[in-house]
């Protein structure tokens, strides 16, 4: 019997233990180092590419000069491109990509399902409707952003309360997901309605373009701060409790028996992940696939333990969206909407994961 045979090598295994523990933490550190290096490389590439190609050396020169107040010996137009367009856009891509990846990873643990993406409770369709409505009423950029954010949060709150009523106070995961599907469908049809009402010359293309996702819109510093605050508020708590997400993925009853107050932990995770998704979508529009596939890629590289999975997801998510955005803004004369590219790259990657046949990782 398997059991008995393996029992023989047990004692030597015991001796190996401390070493294997240390080597695994070294491996973890090196994974994060490599990914961080990749991210930095992608950032450097992103600064240089675009309609104005700026060599890395010139960028360093300008940054150095700006920081230490040297007299400008460079072209002012290049400075404007860098400081007011390219670098803010890079920061936005990093924040949006990281936020979507983290909330996707957290949701997959919470719902015990690797097929879950962050919009499962209706946040994207809510945000989509908010933005469409704001465009229909000719709001400015900030107005559109706030409407998307508000409606995104509102849709999830609606899902949460309706599922609590259906479950009579004891909301189960299944009821939550089903209610989320209903709310998503409702808001999607509201969005269609606004598109139907929108004037076809200006507003309809605007709405359509918003829904396809882009980081080209506004790139002011104020914009970044509006994004940065909710991203930090959402991701710091998730980061602090990330180890407990492991326990949550074993199901509600087991988590309770292991000593976790699942009701409050679940509320915290949904709250933070929703905040992250809503704030990301409100600046970028709909960017699909990242919340679904980046956690998979991270799991493939670093394993399923959330202690490692969350930081890995952030690094990969940021690098991925930045790279996709580079392609979006520099591959053709016109900008390509982000969701087209994330799907074009994401779908084959997902197929590749399936073809790998590693059931365990998927």
């Amino acid at each position, binding site marked *: *019997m*398997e*059991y008995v045979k*393996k*029992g023989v*090598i*047990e004692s030597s*295994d*015991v001796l190996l*233990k401390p070493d*294997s*523990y240390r080597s695994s933490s070294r491996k973890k550190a090196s994974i994060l180092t490599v990914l961080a290096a990749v991210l930095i490389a992608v950032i450097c590439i992103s600064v240089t590419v675009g309609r104005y190609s700026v060599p890395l050396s010139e960028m360093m020169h300008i940054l150095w000069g700006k920081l230490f107040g040297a007299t400008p010996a460079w072209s002012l137009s290049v400075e404007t491109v860098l400081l007011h367009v390219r670098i803010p856009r890079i920061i936005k891509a990093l924040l949006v990509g990281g936020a979507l990846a983290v909330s996707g990873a957290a949701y*997959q*643990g919470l719902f*015990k*399902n*690797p097929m879950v993406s962050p919009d499962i409770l209706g946040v994207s369709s809510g945000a989509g409707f908010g933005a469409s409505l704001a465009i229909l009423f000719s709001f400015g950029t900030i107005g559109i952003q706030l409407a998307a954010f508000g409606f995104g949060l509102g849709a999830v709150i609606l899902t949460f309360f309706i599922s609590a009523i259906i479950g*009579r106070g004891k909301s189960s995961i299944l009821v939550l997901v089903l209610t989320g599907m209903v709310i998503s469908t409702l808001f999607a049809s509201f969005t269609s309605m606004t598109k139907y009402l929108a004037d076809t010359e200006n507003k309809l293309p605007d709405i359509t373009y918003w829904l396809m996702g882009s980081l080209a819109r506004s790139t002011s510093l104020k914009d970044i701060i509006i994004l940065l605050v909710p991203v930090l508020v959402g991701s710091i708590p998730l980061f*602090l*409790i*990330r*180890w*407990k997400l*492991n*326990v949550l*993925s*074993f*199901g509600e*009853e*087991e988590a*309770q*028996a*292991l*000593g*976790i*107050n*699942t009701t409050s932990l679940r509320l915290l995770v949904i709250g933070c992940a929703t905040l992250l998704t809503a704030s990301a979508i409100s600046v970028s529009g709909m960017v699909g696939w990242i919340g679904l596939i980046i956690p998979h890629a991270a*799991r493939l590289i670093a*394993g*399923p*333990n959330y*202690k490692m999975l969350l930081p890995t997801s952030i690094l990969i998510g940021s690098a991925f969206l930045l790279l996709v955005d580079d392609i979006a803004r520099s591959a053709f004369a016109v900008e390509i909407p982000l969701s087209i590219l994330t799907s074009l790259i994401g779908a084959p990657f997902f197929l590749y994961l399936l073809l790998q046949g590693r059931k*365990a*990782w998927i």
Partner: protein
Amino acid sequence: MKLEIKNVSCGYGSKVVLSGVSMEVNSGEILSLLGPNGVGKTTLFKTMLGFLKLIDGEILLDGQDVRSWSRKKLAGAIGYVPQAHTPPFPFSVIDVVLMGRVAHLGALSSPSGKDVKIADESLDSLGISYLRDRIYTEISGGERQMVLIARALTQKPDILVMDEPTSNLDFGNQIKVLKQVNRLAERGLGIVMTTHFPNHAFQCPGKVVLLQRNNRFVYGEADEVVTENHLRAAYGIDVVIKDIMLPGGNAVRSCVPLIN
């Protein structure tokens, strides 16, 4: 430690499934819960673990009502071994066992080297250290059941509640798990386990609750409860219970169901 179930009524919402159930288990004792499908074993079980609200009666740990206890405090006293199942993510065995430390960690902390040591000791004590770095979703059902027991031990509880620890296991693995149950009781843990096999009550000697239909139950020592008459009343089948003499001179009691 002593776990007392006093006059408990339990069920889902306001629908009562079982009422007036009383039993107790002390450190070092085994209490087996027997009964046909749908009679309320799981309901009683879930109530004991606090998954379901108590409708009436009391659950006491060393005389203290557990209703006011936090999840964390309860988890420090009662460990739960669910039926072996497959989680959605391929955690390593040591990661799964480490989850038993949640109840002992602060709200924002994760396991330290000390916790890893405790988890390793649990694996060691069950003789499954060789599984440590394997993938939990890739090992056999019997091995998974052992890992879940190790996780519950890592929790350092006084009482262990096991939900059909032998279900879905092959003949040999069933006995291996039961052997461990006996060893754990010898080490001083109080054990409550549900089972579908009356023989398990003889193999893990202790007290037995036999739940019958229509809210009747028999509670007492295994020899008094697991009798031909009681089993017929509970399951509606004929059984023969006989002592089988072993070569060493000891006898083992066994229950044989009759088909014709």
